[in-house]
């Protein structure tokens, strides 16, 4: 459903992505792992249209969207939970969720999805009138995911959703990601927490300094010696 072909990204003189190619099939959970600065965030930002590539193509459902604006890409079914959650701190939980549906005009569908998000994250229903800045880190992450679901995406990008969360919450977030995937949303997940990520991954790619150096199914990579040494702590 999503295909990245020979993508290069530069930040001024910095060559952040070098000839990156990979694909995500409908219904999969695909994981990108890699050390700090490998280019994972840059990859997601480029696919969702927040960063221009200097070379290469992004193909969504057979259509070349390389020159399509970020807004159009949201309409085409891409939704992005940015690194570090980035909820709107001064707005209430409900207002955050409404902004997730910013580009939609189907009121009934929006209300349906709001109900769906509250079902998935009951805490958000309880806190719907509270400003997002006063939520705990875990609650903010749930809000960020819920907000991204409000655009009813076909494919959801998650940039390090487990960052800074207690182990029990990390487990919960990963359960939620799997359940979102089961209900039909394709997922592209960026993680430092390689262990957890590879357990839920259908397939995974390993990035190093701007390039993809390894790929395989989740279980293949988990048993690979290189990965064990570099990312799973031996």
């Amino acid at each position, binding site marked *: 459903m999503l295909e990245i072909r020979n993508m290069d990204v530069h930040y001024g003189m910095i060559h952040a992505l070098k000839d990156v190619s990979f694909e995500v099939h409908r219904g999969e959970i695909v994981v990108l792992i890699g050390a700090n600065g490998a280019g994972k965030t840059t990859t997601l930002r480029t696919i969702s249209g927040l960063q221009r590539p200097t070379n290469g193509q992004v193909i969504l459902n057979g259509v070349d969207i390389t020159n399509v604006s970020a807004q159009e890409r949201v309409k085409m079914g891409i939704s992005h939970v940015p690194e570090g959650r980035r909820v709107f701190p001064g707005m209430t939980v409900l207002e955050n969720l409404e902004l997730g549906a*910013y580009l939609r005009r189907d009121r009934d569908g*929006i209300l349906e999805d709001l109900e769906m998000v509250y079902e998935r994250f009951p805490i958000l229903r309880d806190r719907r009138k509270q400003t997002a800045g006063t939520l705990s880190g875990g609650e903010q992450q749930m809000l960020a995911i819920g907000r991204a679901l409000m655009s009813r995406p076909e494919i959801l990008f998650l940039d390090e959703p487990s960052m800074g969360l207690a182990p029990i919450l990390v487990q919960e977030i990963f359960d939620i990601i799997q359940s979102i995937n089961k209900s039909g949303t394709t997922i592209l997940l960026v993680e430092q927490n390689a262990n957890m990520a590879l357990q839920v991954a259908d397939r995974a790619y390993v990035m190093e300094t701007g390039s993809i150096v390894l790929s395989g199914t989740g279980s293949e990579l988990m048993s690979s010696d290189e990965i064990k040494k570099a990312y799973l702590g031996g």
Partner: protein
Amino acid sequence: MRKFIALGLVYAIVQILIMTNLISGYFQATLVTIGINIILAVSLNLITGFTGQFSLGHAGFMSVGAYVCAIVTMRMPTIPGFILGVVLGAVAAAILGFLVGLPTLRLRGDYLAIATLGMSEIIRIIFLNLEITNGAAGLIGIPQFINWTWLFIFTVGIVLLLSNFVKSAHGRACISIREDEIAAESMGVDTIRYKVIAFIIGAACAGIAGAIYASYFYYLEPNLFGFLKSVDVLVIVVLGGLGSLSGSMLAAILLALISTYLQSFPEIRMVLYSLILIVIMIFRPQGLMGSREISLSVFSKLGNNKLWDRFKSQKGGH
């Protein structure tokens, strides 16, 4: 409905007071200053308070509206000429707002403030050197058309317009940029478009404020629109609360009354004024109103969020 009755009452009472000479000429000038400052503050609040773009260029936008209106009405000293002057002044300021908005979009925070300040200074220098603006000597004898009725129409009109704007989906988009630009972009908000729109609307309103100034005080010189004028407006906005239109109005009225009252102490006037500002900011660092609006005020509850309402009624139905 209630708000229109209240507005009508305010208008009628002041009008009667003016006709019966119970409001002095001096106090009428204060009323005009309040109206102008309200327009300047709510429009800067749209740019800085709601959209989060730190601008120090409001005096520049204001001066363009003032000079355009003055030049037009001096050649056409009739009511249609005056209206044309206000419209052209607003349009010219809006175009400038667009031009400033575009290149400064890549700039954030302090850099944007410096760029807008620079723009405003460039305009002042241009007006100092143009023939049509009569350089440093300025324009004198601009026909006076502004009276309480016009002032009321412009001020209330702009406040209602901006109040509806910030409560609409467009306003939400602007606020989301202030809250977190990257997240807003991820949600599909066209951040560039909304930043430019905020600058265009804000600049047009400032242009109208300038036109009112020119048409009431019948004298203009470039140095009226220096850096300090922009700072004055920013002070009103911050004092009232970034993101609160009623706060801007309250602060504009309060500061005008304070400085009128302080006229009786000319030697220490500025010291007292500064002290009052400092004290208010110590006790209300978020501004008089924070980002809230006065809920029973005539100006709030105008735009209604239909989605919210439906949500509430749906919840109630369970």
